[in-house]
């Protein structure tokens, strides 16, 4: 089971802020997670949306598996 989090407008686009999901066998990295969920929620595929794994920003595709927390982050707006 992986935990998948959605922030900002992605919360509305997906309809929830968190999912507990069993990753399909062929979904083993962040690019694959994005394509897998993006087929139902195209907002996740926008290049401005970044991914963090276990609360660390990813700069490139990264392996993920059971127990990981995968967060989809739209452009940030602090301050």
């Amino acid at each position, binding site marked *: 089971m992986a935990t998948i*989090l959605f*922030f*900002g*407008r992605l*919360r*509305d686009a997906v309809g929830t802020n968190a999912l507990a999901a069993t990753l399909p066998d062929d979904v083993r990295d962040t690019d694959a997670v994005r394509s897998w969920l993006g087929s139902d929620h195209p907002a996740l595929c926008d290049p401005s949306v970044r991914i*963090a794994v276990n*609360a*660390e*920003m990813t700069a490139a595709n990264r392996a993920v598996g059971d127990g990981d*927390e995968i*967060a989809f*982050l*739209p*452009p*940030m*707006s*602090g*301050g």
Partner: protein
Amino acid sequence: MIRVQPEPFDPAAELAAFIAGAKGAGAVASFTGLVRGDDNVSGLELDHYPALTGKAVAAIGEAARARFGLAALAIVHRFGALAPGEPIVFVAAAAAHRRAAFRAVDYMMDRLKTEAPFWKREHGPDGPRWIEARGSDVEDRARWG
């Protein structure tokens, strides 16, 4: 001193405490960001990613300390529900001379706007609306390399 909190804070008290702790520095600069008092905005909501926010904000502070040789720095950032006119962020820098203090505050704000995991939602007459960093915020951030 870095805090991320849902409670309101008093920027005057924050600045007084910061100056009291910055003995030996020759210059203190600070910035307070407020929720804009637009007639059409009844409130603001700040979503954030708690597991990431603290360390992202701390990393911005540490980068400013190293880059500008700061003697001390403060970042206070709110999350949750805010009303128009309320302080949302307070940033302060203490340095030997004013230029480093001014620049450090500007730098920290540019990075907070674009790299701290906060997401703003405005509540207005047409319902809630997510606000994202503007192109000008990204250009401001890019000035620092």
